[in-house]
């Protein structure tokens, strides 16, 4: 519990976190608003085929904020200070304060999960208001199960980012890969056109939780389960590597 609080306070005192918060709160709203504006005529006429995606698309594509959160939580530990301070990294201090490495990792993952859930709730509020602002009375109702799916998607994505960064130590690759993958030019979507197996990739499966795509493959619950399975596997791999790794390497 103490470790969890420590990790929370560490996260909140990171300067980059405010960037993550800013993006996490406003990006989904902006994306949803722009998308709704583009679809406005179709919706009013009643011929929109993407009615069920209104608003949710913002939550699906605005997930960059939690990615930055998950990556920064780990990469800030490995940021080596200049040689002035002896080339030390925060990870050495962190590991001397907790009883075991797994404890440390779990506490950190817990902190990341809690903050990303909070962030997603705020994002949902801004997205819903933005969609209302644009579409007025034509806004479709936002159902609870799908919103819950969106919250889960955000939390799982943050944990995926977290796990990958534990493996790579440096934040550049996970940041680049995940930002591209959750943008409009996603790898997963491309691969899903090549092979059906790509539909089991975490973000593609996770999308099923709250977005009705034209080619539905998994039920929302199964989609969530697949994404969760990815998170668990990645976390176990990260935990094993982290446990055995020398800090100096």
């Amino acid at each position, binding site marked *: 519990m103490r470790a969890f609080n420590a990790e929370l306070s560490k996260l909140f005192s990171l300067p980059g976190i405010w960037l993550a918060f800013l993006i996490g709160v406003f990006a989904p709203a902006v994306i949803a608003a722009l998308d709704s504006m583009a679809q406005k005529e179709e919706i009013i006429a009643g011929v929109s085929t993407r009615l069920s995606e209104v608003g949710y698309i913002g939550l699906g594509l605005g997930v960059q904020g939690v990615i930055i959160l998950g990556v920064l939580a780990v990469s800030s530990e490995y940021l*080596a200070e*200049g*040689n*002035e301070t*002896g*080339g030390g990294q925060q990870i050495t201090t962190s590991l001397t304060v907790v009883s075991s490495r797994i404890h440390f990792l779990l506490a950190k993952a817990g902190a990341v999960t809690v903050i990303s859930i909070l962030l997603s709730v705020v994002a949902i509020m801004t997205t819903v208001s933005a969609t209302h602002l644009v579409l007025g009375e034509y806004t479709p109702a936002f159902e609870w199960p799908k919103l819950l799916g969106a919250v889960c998607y955000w939390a799982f994505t943050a944990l995926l980012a977290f796990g990958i960064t534990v493996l790579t130590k440096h934040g550049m690759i996970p940041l680049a890969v995940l930002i591209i993958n959750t943008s409009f030019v996603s790898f997963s979507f491309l691969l899903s056109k090549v092979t059906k197996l790509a539909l089991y990739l975490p973000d593609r499966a996770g999308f099923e939780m709250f977005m009705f795509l034209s080619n539905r493959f998994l039920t929302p619950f199964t989609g969530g389960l697949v994404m969760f399975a990815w998170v668990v596997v990645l976390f176990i791999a990260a935990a094993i590597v982290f446990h055995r790794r020398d800090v100096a390497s």
Partner: protein
Amino acid sequence: MITIHNLVKRRGTQEILSGISFKARPGRVTGFLGPNGAGKSSTLRILLGLDRATSGNALIDGKPFAELHNPLTTIGAALDGSGAHRMRTGRAHLRWMAHAAGLSRSRVEEVLDIVGLTNAAGKRVGKYSLGMGRRLGMAAALLGDPKILVLDEPINGLDPEGIRWIRTFLRERAASGNTVLLSSHLMGELAATVDDVVIIHHGKIVADGTLEEVIGNHSTLEEAFFALTSGLAGDVV
């Protein structure tokens, strides 16, 4: 010769340097002392053109740093750390510097030999110990065989052999007519190495003269230092 004249540096509302002036003469080792936060690093950074002064100037043989034709052959500096990218090897680091200054690769090997890093030169700088990193910084400073050496905490992290080597090395360099400006916290070592002493406190020079003049009636340099720096009003850093 290094001439610092009325250097003032303000950062926001804080005045870091309040009109400091001193000289570092050729043929002598000048020690630059001061408590933490006194303004030593700021002075050296302004001298080397890394930071901009609000007013005043810092001249090297009468010219500011940016006007030197080949800085590496005129003034060599070893500031904090190794000054090298952690992923590069020590040898690669020195090679690009030599390339920029028009020096040959054999000079790189010479300098590595002088500081004793020949065996470690093929390893990544990130794997160096603190002392090895300082040696690399020293090697970089010596690359152009400059007439002026500016060293910030050169002894930091060195083993006893390295400490003795630096002491004799710097004295030899001064004896052959070069200028050495060295900043350090280790009074005992400094007293055995320097000829002139400049003490800075809260951005002002509080002592400037030969070692004997500064020690004056005190027994050691350390005593003199504390007398000069804690006698003033202001917080003890």
